């Protein structure tokens, strides 16, 4: 590249740095958003990878939904004898209660759903459990004196349990049939899977304690995990394959620490990928700012460019000057953004913990430090995205340089840009008119499009998501652009307004060379993102909280044993007065074969991310199915294929009815045979019908329903739902814990609140990143104002010279900015409604509803924002004295 181009680029920048502050900041904001997101993603992923063993709790995990049989135990003992250490962990949901005569419990808070975990002395194989007081876990959980005069097992609990039940270490707690002494508070648990969604506080007890509690009955919802640790670093896969073979009869899932985290990783990956796309939107909005700056700059440089051409600079050389300049400024902006992203990084963990209360970060040894190349990669990617985006958005306005004729300086000419209209009236057009399909411009547009697509795909990590995102974005940009132009044209067509203030304001928006379209696009785009997220969140939260019918069940009780069914129903009837209560039989099972073809259990985890259909199929193949037996078709279920069995119909073969999506993913039709592994016994049934299920109706819904009599003798447990009035639930729960300690009562409101809270956190994260787009949008407006600053100054002093007061001019500016905000707001919010409607209708399968309060509030805030930004951009002009300005003319 020509040295002269570099020299001139430096000189131009030196002189116009104020101009380029906006350029640099526009790029920096977008890159900052992206680097923040991807640096966070990288360090979390690194942590997950680094701590994969302790997150799983071992090198190999064998997971089943029931205790291993004697044969299975024998296999594990044999493996242990080869030098592997093993620990056995059981996890289940249970009720914890304050024993009847305990002191200090706040009235009405004597029971609590807990996530119970039973461990043996070998636990943990990797990492350490954090407990206060700092003693060995085995010692804390062992049986010793503590429960009044009697020896009893110990428990360590999460602090939230103590707060909710008003307990202190040393107090007693009853779980199932056993009483435990609380011996400590758990602060860190290495293998608690990162879980944004939890049903209750953690309680850790010993395996012996779990037996004493008598909670694990046939069919109980328990997760049994057997963890193995090898000495040294042996190859694990042969052992995994061996175990899969030898434990096939146990329906056990065997995985290594390498494959164990894909769920978590995938969640984080997807979250950060979508956050990244929101960040990319901020960068693209910043791109509009870059284009606005360069466009205004080139227009201002018209004379200088013509002079350079007269002095013998060729057009390619002049173009080079401004491309070099854009490149350097983009680099500076990107570097500033990256620096910002990295510096926020250090503060992010604590920020996230306080804002989102994310369990994940508590469990991970998370640090904002960089010890390897990943930090470099994140920065390099941010720089590349920033520079490329800036160059892409510079390309078009810089190409206009070609069209500046050197003869422009022969006369004092009206400065006309190609897009500012009425060229026919100018005797000496400063710009040559080119045909619309000018080859260089067409190829530049193609380069821009390919570049944008590449950037979007790079960020999205998948061509499908990338092109979907870009398609949506381009569509939105086009609509915004057209809508803005039409509205501005509409303003021009209005009959003349009498008020000078308003006429001048309108004129500033629709005059030739006004930057209103760019500003409206930028602000509209940012608004679209933010309002869409709000609308989606509101629709989802409303769906789970407010649309619940008032007589819907408030509690469901799980793990009711067959011999407890009558008793539990009677208890529920006594407390709530509801008659005709029923308990649904439940059976936990896995798919063993479809039409005689056996299912491979580990399929899902080993499939790559970019094959969503196969992943979904694998998910349906390997998940646990809770099935039931029903005589009648449940309410809100519609048979879409086949027929429902008639009550009392004699059946020789068992029938099953399967849910539509599951049937499609599994490739099952009416007449297919499904084989299910029910607690070790394989049961086959013929598909009789395929159902459509209304999942959001707050009833208990099932993927698979069996015909009456088809699962005789299977180890059913029962679930009962009941609607309680305020005041009924506490005595009910207390009685339930005393009479049926193994039955767990879960408050549906708590579950839904948990869901709403999780949604709230997610939407906060998205909003935080989307906020960067808004900053970019505001910057575009500030850029446009600064580009028209001189013209405004000149006009304002002329108006003053003609007798306009400062307040007249100020009111006119305020009306202009308010109008700008109004139009941008209406378009952006309109698009947000279309976008959220589309997403809700087609992606979430929910109905869209009009949210007037949210929309009006967004619109008013937008108008306020544009007026404030405009005020700061132009208030300096208002105080200038006419003569001082005109003297320089």
């Amino acid at each position, binding site marked *: 590249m020509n040295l002269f181009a570099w020299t001139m680029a430096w000189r*131009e920048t030196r*002189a116009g740095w104020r101009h380029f502050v906006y350029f640099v900041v526009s790029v920096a904001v977008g890159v900052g958003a992206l680097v923040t997101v991807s640096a966070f993603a990288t360090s979390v992923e690194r942590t997950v990878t680094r701590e994969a063993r302790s997150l799983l709790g071992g090198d190999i995990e064998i997971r089943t939904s029931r205790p291993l049989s004697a044969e299975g135990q024998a296999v594990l003992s044999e493996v242990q004898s080869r030098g592997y250490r093993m620990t056995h962990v059981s996890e289940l949901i249970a009720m914890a209660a304050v024993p009847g005569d305990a002191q200090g419990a706040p009235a009405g808070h004597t029971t609590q759903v807990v996530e119970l975990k039973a461990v043996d002395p070998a636990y943990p194989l990797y990492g350490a459990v954090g407990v206060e007081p700092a003693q060995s876990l085995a010692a804390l959980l062992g049986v010793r004196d503590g429960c009044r005069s009697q020896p009893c097992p110990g428990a360590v609990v999460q602090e939230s349990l103590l707060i909710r039940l008003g307990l202190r270490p040393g107090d007693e707690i009853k779980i199932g049939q056993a009483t435990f002494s609380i011996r400590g508070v758990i602060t860190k648990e290495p293998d608690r899977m990162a879980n944004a969604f939890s049903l209750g506080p953690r309680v850790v007890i010993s395996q012996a304690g779990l037996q004493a509690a008598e909670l694990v009955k046939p069919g109980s919802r328990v997760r049994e995990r057997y963890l193995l640790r090898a000495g040294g670093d042996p190859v694990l896969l042969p052992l995994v394959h061996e175990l899969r073979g030898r434990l096939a009869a146990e329906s056990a899932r065997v995985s290594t620490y390498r494959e164990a985290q894909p769920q978590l990783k995938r969640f984080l990956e997807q979250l950060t990928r979508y956050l990244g796309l929101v960040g990319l939107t901020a960068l693209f909005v910043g791109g509009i700012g870059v284009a606005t700056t360069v466009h205004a700059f080139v227009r201002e440089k018209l004379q*200088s460019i013509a002079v350079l051409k*007269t*002095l013998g600079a060729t057009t*390619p050389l002049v173009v080079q000057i401004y491309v070099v300049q854009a490149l350097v400024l983009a680099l500076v902006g990107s570097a500033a953004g990256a620096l910002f992203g990295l510096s926020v990084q250090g503060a992010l963990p604590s920020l996230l913990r306080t804002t989102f209360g994310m369990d994940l970060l508590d469990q991970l040894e998370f640090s904002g430090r960089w010890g390897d190349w990943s930090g470099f990669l994140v920065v390099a990617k941010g720089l590349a995205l920033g520079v490329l985006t800036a160059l892409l958005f510079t390309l078009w306005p810089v190409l206009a340089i070609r069209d500046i004729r050197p003869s422009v300086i022969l006369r*004092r000419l009206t400065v006309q840009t190609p897009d500012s209209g009425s060229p026919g009236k100018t*005797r000496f057009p400063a710009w040559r008119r080119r045909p619309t399909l000018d080859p260089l411009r067409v190829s530049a547009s193609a380069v821009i499009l390919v570049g944008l697509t590449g950037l979007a795909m790079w960020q999205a990590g998948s061509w499908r998501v990338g092109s979907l995102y870009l398609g949506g974005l381009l569509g939105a940009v086009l609509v915004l652009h057209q809508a803005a132009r039409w509205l501005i044209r509409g303003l021009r067509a209005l009959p003349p307004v009498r008020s000078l203030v308003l006429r001048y304001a309108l004129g500033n928006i629709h005059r030739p060379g006004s930057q209103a379209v760019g500003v409206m696009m930028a602000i509209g785009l940012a608004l679209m993102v933010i309002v869409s997220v709000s609308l989606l969140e509101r629709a989802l939260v409303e769906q789970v909280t407010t649309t619940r019918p008032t007589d819907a069940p408030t509690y469901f009780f799980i793990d009711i044993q067959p011999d407890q069914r009558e008793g539990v129903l009677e208890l529920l009837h006594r407390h709530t007065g509801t008659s005709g209560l029923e308990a649904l039989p439940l059976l936990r099972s896995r798919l063993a074969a479809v039409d005689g073809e056996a299912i491979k259990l580990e399929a899902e985890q080993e499939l790559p991310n970019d094959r969503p259909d196969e992943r979904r199929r694998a998910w349906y193949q390997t998940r646990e199915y809770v099935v039931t037996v029903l005589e009648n078709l449940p309410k809100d279920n519609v048979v879409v294929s086949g027929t429902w069995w008639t009550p009392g119909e004699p059946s020789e073969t068992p029938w099953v009815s399967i849910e539509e999506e599951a049937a499609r993913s599994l490739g099952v039709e009416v007449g297919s045979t499904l084989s299910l592994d029910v607690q070790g016994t394989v049961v086959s049934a013929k598909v009789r019908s395929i159902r459509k299920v209304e999942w959001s109706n707050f009833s208990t819904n099932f993927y698979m329903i069996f015909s009456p009599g088809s699962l005789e003798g299977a180890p059913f447990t029962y679930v009962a739902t009941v609607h309680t009035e305020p005041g009924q639930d506490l005595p009910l729960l207390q009685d339930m814990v005393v009479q049926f300690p193994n039955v767990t009562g879960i408050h549906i409101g708590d579950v839904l609140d948990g869901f709403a809270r999780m949604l709230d956190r997610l939407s906060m994260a998205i909003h935080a990143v989307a906020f960067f787009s808004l900053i970019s949008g505001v910057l575009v407006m500030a850029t446009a104002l600064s580009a028209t600053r001189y013209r405004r100054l000149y006009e304002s002093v002329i108006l003053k010279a003609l007798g306009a007061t400062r307040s007249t001019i100020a009111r006119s500016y305020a009306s202009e900015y308010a109008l700008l905000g109004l139009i941008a707001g209406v378009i952006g919010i309109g698009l947000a409604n279309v976008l959220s409607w589309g997403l809700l209708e087609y992606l979430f399968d929910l109905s869209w509803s009009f949210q007037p309060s949210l929309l009006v509030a967004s619109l008013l805030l937008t108008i306020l924002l544009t007026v404030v930004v405009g005020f700061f951009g132009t208030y300096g002009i208002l105080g200038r004295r006419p003569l001082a300005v005109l003297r320089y003319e």
Partner: protein
Amino acid sequence: MIRVRDVVMQLAGGGHTLTVLDHVSLEIPDKQTVAIVGPSGSGKSTLLGLMAGLDRPTSGTIEINGVELSSMSESALAEFRRDTIGYVFQAFHLIPTLTALENVAVPLELQADPRAHSRAAELLMAVGLGDRRQHYPVQLSGGEQQRVAIARAFACRPPILLADEPTGNLDSAAGRQVLALLLDLHRDVGATLVLVTHELEIAHTMERVITLKDGRIESDRFLRPEGAAGGPP
């Protein structure tokens, strides 16, 4: 040698066509000093601009030192100007973001002259602005700006110097100073000097005066033999 043959320049606009130059032909031999005079709108500046290749005529040809301008691409024209033509504008047209020194250095830098800055400094010294090198155009008076512009036009020692109303924006004292400078440099460098003016006093310092009216040559007079340009009046 500048050879203008049958040049017509028409500008379209406002629904009708305006003929700025109407079949103009003339020849200017090397090293001659020529004034082009005429009332406003007679096409003087347009003719000068066409000689510099700043625009293309509607018809006719312009040939400079045997090279026909209309056959050249825009980039070739730019390089041709860099090497052959010095141009002085009525409105000076210094680049506002560059210092006086940098403004003068631009044509030299475009020629990739490694001594661009020291030569520019010498030229500024020659026009009497040795102490104003680091000043920006806004910090200079009109006369000083025009002297910088003249130094810039002479920087590459072009064989042809075109000046469009070089004194038009200056008061008479500064105007005289600038004219004297142009003539001095013309003598030193030995370049052809074509100057557009509407002041007869200035025109009469040239060897030859061409009068344009309504886009046509009205008269073409030689005031004194070639190579004997007068000093400022």
